[in-house]
């Protein structure tokens, strides 16, 4: 399970053998890919921040009448009374007859050929060969199919269950429909018994819907909020804490330094994923929480040591530099030295570490959500959406591909951004990169 742990690991320069000191220089020439990556990252942030204002569907609204659909336009749906099945006509059937055909139910009946006692009914996509899905087996002469009906041409095949011989086949295309109960639930009909309109309008879904009939576009935007929030806030926190702690350790030195580095060694040695899961369970999710805070806290507790070590190494090297010495000799106070001289020198490295930590954090969140230990519904994240979508990868690939693509693009953008930033700082540092 730790492949992800590792694969999600950020780029970390190996501990510097000799820390490089950057001489400030004004050579800022961002490459094309850097600009592209920055634009993509910005676009993603804008999408999740402003997108919901433009596409105002509720990401948690479940259209049970439109489960796992591809892109659909707004359409009119017949309102059918879901509970009360149509009464069978008295006249005998002569073949496999379709009495009613809509996406709420397809009602079939057939005559009784002599010698057949048990029937088996199959349903298939009419464009494909084969009998398809076995729906039912029994002795009755009618069947009501309600199983995830779509607006496509179906072929029903009735066979003798004992001999397997084909008896009848027929084709039908159900018309769009919605049950009274669902229409009431969605607020399309008033909650009252009695007569109701025959048709209601269902909204469009530009990217389709997921396995619970929720609008994918709205969910991608809502999910991106959680993913990017974790992806940005968690690294901010653990890099902030790590560099503060590591910087102080490096600057103060002595016993505190020893203690800090020992602690970092310990935390690094903890099996990352096990502790993520353990911490996640220990913290639990309180009422009304979306599960993001425990995730961030767990990441903070486990991820700070790398940046602490990095910054400590830098500070150690800087501390013995002549310009720091001269500053100290000329009576500049410690806070001011840290602020004026140390910080500007480690800032580029911090920025690089940060941009590489973002993809790591996004991936960690995705992985935890993927194994069901991330955000809690009705909140969602790209990882949680992948988790929902992977089960239907073969039949409904879009439910996995959209969120997976979003994760990959975001991670790619931040990785390229990090790469570019590192190249920049390296160049400024005189090509002493790693």
């Amino acid at each position, binding site marked *: 399970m730790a492949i992800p742990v590792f694969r999600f690991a950020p780029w970390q320069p190996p501990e510097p053998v000799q820390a490089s000191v950057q001489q400030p220089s004004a050579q800022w020439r961002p490459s094309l890919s850097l600009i592209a990556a920055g634009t993509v990252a910005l676009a993603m942030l804008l999408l999740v921040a402003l997108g919901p204002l433009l596409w105002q569907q509720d990401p*948690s*609204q*479940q259209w*049970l*009448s439109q*489960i796992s659909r591809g892109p659909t336009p707004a359409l009119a749906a017949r309102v059918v009374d*879901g*509970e009360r099945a149509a009464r069978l006509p008295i006249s005998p059937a002569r073949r496999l007859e379709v009495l009613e055909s809509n996406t709420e139910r397809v009602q079939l009946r057939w005559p009784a050929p002599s010698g057949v006692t048990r029937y088996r009914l199959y349903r*298939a996509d009419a464009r*494909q*060969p*084969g009998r*398809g*899905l*076995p*729906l*039912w087996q029994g002795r009755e002469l009618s069947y009501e199919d*309600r*199983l*995830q009906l779509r607006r496509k041409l179906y072929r029903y095949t009735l066979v003798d269950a004992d001999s397997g011989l084909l008896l009848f086949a027929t084709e039908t295309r159900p018309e769009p429909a919605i*049950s009274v*109960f*669902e229409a*009431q*639930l*969605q607020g399309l009909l008033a*909650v*009252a*018994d009695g007569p109701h309109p025959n048709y209601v309008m269902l909204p469009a879904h530009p990217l389709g819907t997921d*396995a*619970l*009939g929720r609008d994918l576009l709205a969910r991608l935007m809502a999910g991106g909020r959680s993913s990017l929030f974790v992806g940005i806030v968690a690294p901010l926190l653990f890099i902030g804490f790590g560099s503060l702690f590591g910087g102080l350790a490096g600057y103060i030195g002595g016993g505190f330094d020893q203690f800090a580095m020992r602690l970092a060694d310990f935390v690094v040695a903890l099996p990352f994923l096990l502790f993520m899961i353990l911490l996640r*369970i220990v913290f639990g*999710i309180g*009422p*009304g929480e979306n599960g993001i805070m425990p995730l961030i806290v767990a990441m903070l507790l486990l991820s700070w040591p790398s940046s602490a070590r990095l910054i400590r190494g830098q500070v150690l090297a800087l501390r013995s530099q002549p310009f720091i010495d001269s500053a100290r000799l000329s009576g500049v106070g410690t806070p001011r030295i840290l602020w004026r001289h140390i910080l500007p020198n480690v800032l580029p490295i911090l920025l690089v570490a940060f941009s590489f930590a973002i993809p790591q954090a996004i991936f960690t969140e995705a992985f935890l959500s993927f194994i*069901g230990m991330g955000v*809690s*519904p*009705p909140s969602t994240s790209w990882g949680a959406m992948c*988790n*929902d979508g*992977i*089960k*239907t*990868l*073969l*039949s*409904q690939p879009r439910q996995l591909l959209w969120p997976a693509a979003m994760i990959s693009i975001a991670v790619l953008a931040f990785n390229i951004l990090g790469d570019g930033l590192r190249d920049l700082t390296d160049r400024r540092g005189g090509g002493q990169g790693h």
Partner: protein
Amino acid sequence: MLQSVFVAILGALAVTAQAAAVDAQARSISLALATEPPTLHSARATDTIASFVLAHIMEGLLRYDASGELQGGVAERWQLSEQGARFWLRDGARWSDGRAVTADDFVFAWQYALRPDTASQYAFIFYPIKNAQLVNEGKLPPTALGVKAVSARELVVEFEQPCPYFLSLTAFMSYMPLRRDAVEQWGRRYAADADTLLFNGPFVLDKWVHGAELLLRKNSRYWDAASLRIEQIHMPYITADPGAQFNLFRDGQIALANLDTGLLDEAVKRGYEIRHFHSGSLFFLEFNFRPGRITANRSFRKAVQYVLNPDALVNKIIGLPGVLPAYSLFPVTVRGHQKPFREEYPALRIEQNLSVARRYLERARRELGLETFPPLMLLAGDSPRALQEAEYYQYLFKRGLGLDLRIDQQVFKQRLEKMRRGDFDIAAAAWGPDYDDIMTFADLFASWNDNNRGRYNNPEYDRLVKLAQRSGDPLRRFSAMARLQDLVADDVPILPTYENAMLYVQHPKLKGVRRSVFGGDPNFRDAWIEP
């Protein structure tokens, strides 16, 4: 061209080919296991995988045949009365080391399973036997158990109370025989490996590589070995990933693969014949009746009942043929007097109705003296389906009733612990039958049952259960159960949601595999391979 070069390179890399899914010549089949059996000690095993393996390598007094009827196993003849049962063992029944299976082996096995220091979690399944509970609690010595070996081939069982379903119990894995000398010789190592175990079933465990492989071979000393048409069952894959199992099936490596929702369309598209069978288990929402819980209010539960439609859940969300919407405490597989119980006593079906539900909710609010309802906690499992289900309920509660339902998704052990502690308002739970009788479901919500995690306490419910337990008359029993079924629909101690089914694909040449709730699933004892 390029393609064939590529294929040739890969071919050079591939060192060995795997055994095929079915081999008609060698009469061998290959399967994948979802997990490794935690133990094959029949007195201590609890899980379905162990039950599957044990059903092949061991045999109890009775067994299930190809059509699912009880047949003689080690026992040749038997008698059942309200007071007890008597079994005559067949002459030819042998252990894999050649010694005869005797009545003493059963007496030892049952006493062993009940000894407190065995800590068998299925000890309760012996409780119909006289003194079993007291022995299990350590209040009586194991020898006080109401089972005696009259001779090497005759076994007498005394009941605590009438037990019309006792014969089906004797086919259950806990009731299988154990050899005293073997258990004592190997001690804790008993059944930990293939060579620390004795067999009396149609197959022997030939090889057990932990975490990787199990191999069963025909037991030549089995009394009915002549009727077996499978020589070996090979399980070289252990993976719980349904996608991986399906890929193995597609590749012709295994003869049987279970399907889940996401694989169904793909299997249909490839033209496989999809099969399904009712797994006998009931899924339901359990309400918490501990003092101070909103869910203890009947009007509130009625409101939930009127808003939740099992049919929509099954047909729209689960979307698997064979899975049935549940309207009763008793799944359709439960036996009645002559026909299935549900055919004899149809269940009442509540029609979903938003305005009725809202009226009930308003009444509950007044009865509870609440201004508004606080958020409720729904304890749910961590499987994808459990989450989907929970999200559906959450949405339904929000939209239909204006209630906040918070999903507390927990991994297995933590969820059970929270249920035990009563740390929930509503819990999504499931129950699989332990034995082939209606009582395995009926006594679930009796006030004394520890599995009644919501602490439902209704004297009428208890009375009906006791009535059925003490009666040997089937008509009285089942009419009491019919009243129980109505009571569950009326008072809503639980809200049934669906009855589960297993969907699977099977190699077309493999025939006669029995899939069922009881007696180890799947069962290959009577299977054969078409040439």
